[in-house]
């Protein structure tokens, strides 16, 4: 019994390593810059969705305001670099730390809310933050921040000639987010989170401090999302409030996990691999006037999934496994 469990954990790890290795080799065969761009975004959203999944999937506190942490990461890195010359690597850590602290500060009042009320609070807070940034002159207000290019360098994390360094960073980020989830899944926190999601009263009676569990999940989740935001700022090298803190980012973090399987280890990866290329392709096929068509496409996908496979796409795999046993 015990070994069965250990085997499954090890199998997950091996599968992840193989997939990461395969992904690392992909640029050898894919030279098209447009496709490379899609791969970078897919990996980034896989990482973001995996991080979102920690708070919303495992701990069950559905957040539709994670764009806030994404934007905080992006802005912290960009501001530190353009105003003080701080390297993006430190900006990334600073952005992560600030986001984690803010997530806990916001969690303090918000985690008293349950269910839909919590979701509404997260949306409203992210929108308020967006408005604040839009009116903050020092941070470029609505115009945003242009990150000056000073030549290709790993130190400054800027690359103009090739997308590959971004690709490998995004891959590393996705791997880290996956690994953190994998590791937390079989830790006290992982069990506490799932218990809190399923039944907070019962969890409390078993010694789980529900409030602390939520705070921990929020901090880890916000930290990782902010690192993703920092990366995005470097990747696009120009940010404005709407382009890093808009509501669509909150959705794009939630949807892959929901599609793939919320609260599962593989759900976000699977969801991102399907959803992000689909979104990008619809966008480019439909062209400039078609903004919103991508939303229709994955809106339809989500409806189909929630009707046919309410536990997400990963349930297809576990069903087959169950039948084989």
């Amino acid at each position, binding site marked *: 019994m*015990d070994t069965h469990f250990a085997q499954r954990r090890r199998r997950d790890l091996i599968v992840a390593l193989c997939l990461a290795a395969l992904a690392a080799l992909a640029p050898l065969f894919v030279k098209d810059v447009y496709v490379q761009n899609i791969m970078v975004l897919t990996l980034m959203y896989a990482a973001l969705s995996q991080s979102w999944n920690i708070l919303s999937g495992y701990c069950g506190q559905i957040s539709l305001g994670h764009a806030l942490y994404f934007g905080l990461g992006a802005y912290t890195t960009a501001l530190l670099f353009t105003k003080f010359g701080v390297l993006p690597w430190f900006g990334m850590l600073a952005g992560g730390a600030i986001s984690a602290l803010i997530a806990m500060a916001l969690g303090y009042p918000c985690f008293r809310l349950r269910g839909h009320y919590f979701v509404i609070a997260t949306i409203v807070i992210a929108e308020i933050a967006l408005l604040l940034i839009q009116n903050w002159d020092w941070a470029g207000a609505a115009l945003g921040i242009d990150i000056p290019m000073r030549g290709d360098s790993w130190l400054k994390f800027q690359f103009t000639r090739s997308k590959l360094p971004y690709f490998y960073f995004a891959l590393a980020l996705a791997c880290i987010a996956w690994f953190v989830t994998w590791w937390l899944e079989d830790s006290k926190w992982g069990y506490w989170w799932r218990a809190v999601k399923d039944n907070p009263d019962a*969890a409390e009676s078993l*010694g789980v401090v529900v409030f602390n569990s939520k705070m921990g999940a929020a901090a880890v989740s916000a930290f990782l999302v902010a690192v993703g935001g920092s990366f995005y700022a470097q990747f696009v090298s120009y940010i404005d409030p709407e382009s890093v803190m808009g509501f669509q980012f909150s959705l794009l973090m939630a949807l892959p996990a929901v599609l793939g399987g919320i609260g599962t280890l593989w759900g976000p990866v699977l969801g991102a691999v399907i959803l992000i290329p689909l979104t990008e392709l619809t966008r480019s096929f439909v062209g400039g006037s078609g903004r919103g068509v991508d939303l229709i496409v994955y809106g339809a996908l989500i409806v189909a999934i929630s009707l046919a496979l309410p536990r997400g796409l990963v349930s297809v795999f576990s069903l087959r496994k169950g039948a084989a046993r």
Partner: protein
Amino acid sequence: MTALLETRGVWQRFGGLVANSDVSISVGRGEIVGLIGPNGAGKSTLFNLIAGVLPPTQGSIIFDGEDVTRLPAAERCQRGVGRTFQVVKSFETMTVIDNVIVGALIRNTKMRIARQKAYEVLEFCGLAARAEVLASDLVPSEKRRLEVARALATEPKLLLLDEVLTGLTPVEAQTGVELVRKVRATGVTVLMVEHVMEIVMPLVDRAIVLNLGKVLVEGKPAEVVRNPEVITAYLGDRHAVGA
């Protein structure tokens, strides 16, 4: 010998409703005590006060020599109060063993040991064969046993059982009774709320009868069931005359 649990003049009011008034009970170490009474007598409220779901309006609760009146539920679990719920509250999306691991984690920080411990508890409760099944797939009697297993995994000194034998078939209930005896044999004190008199009375060492929020009588089961006041509370005045 000091009691393991003592409530001293506990009151609980919900607005104008008095659920518990001046309840003082004590439970000795190693006892099985039954808390009985008709519907609305305040049994569940008293249970929640002891488990720490809410603090009493007035009075104090002493557990293991310490005043725990103001401590939250998680903290009381840490100190050795385990409980089950009248309406089962399994972690439905988790497997049976994972449910129990949540409880085991409070005493064991190493995952491997917590898992081992959880498995032992499942064997003790006769659920080991169902370890890898989702809690949502259990039948009602198994869910009740899972509640007990989860609470036992926290290694409680006092186990609060809230109607674990209610709604079971006679055979299932008998298995439950044996489980409670086994639990006591390991040195755990048991306080149980129960409706089914003929099952609970042979099991408990002592019964406390609540009625209208107050302690009506307490004593040996045989004495309690013959007490005219108890019969009145349960069946009305007409039947008490015959007793």
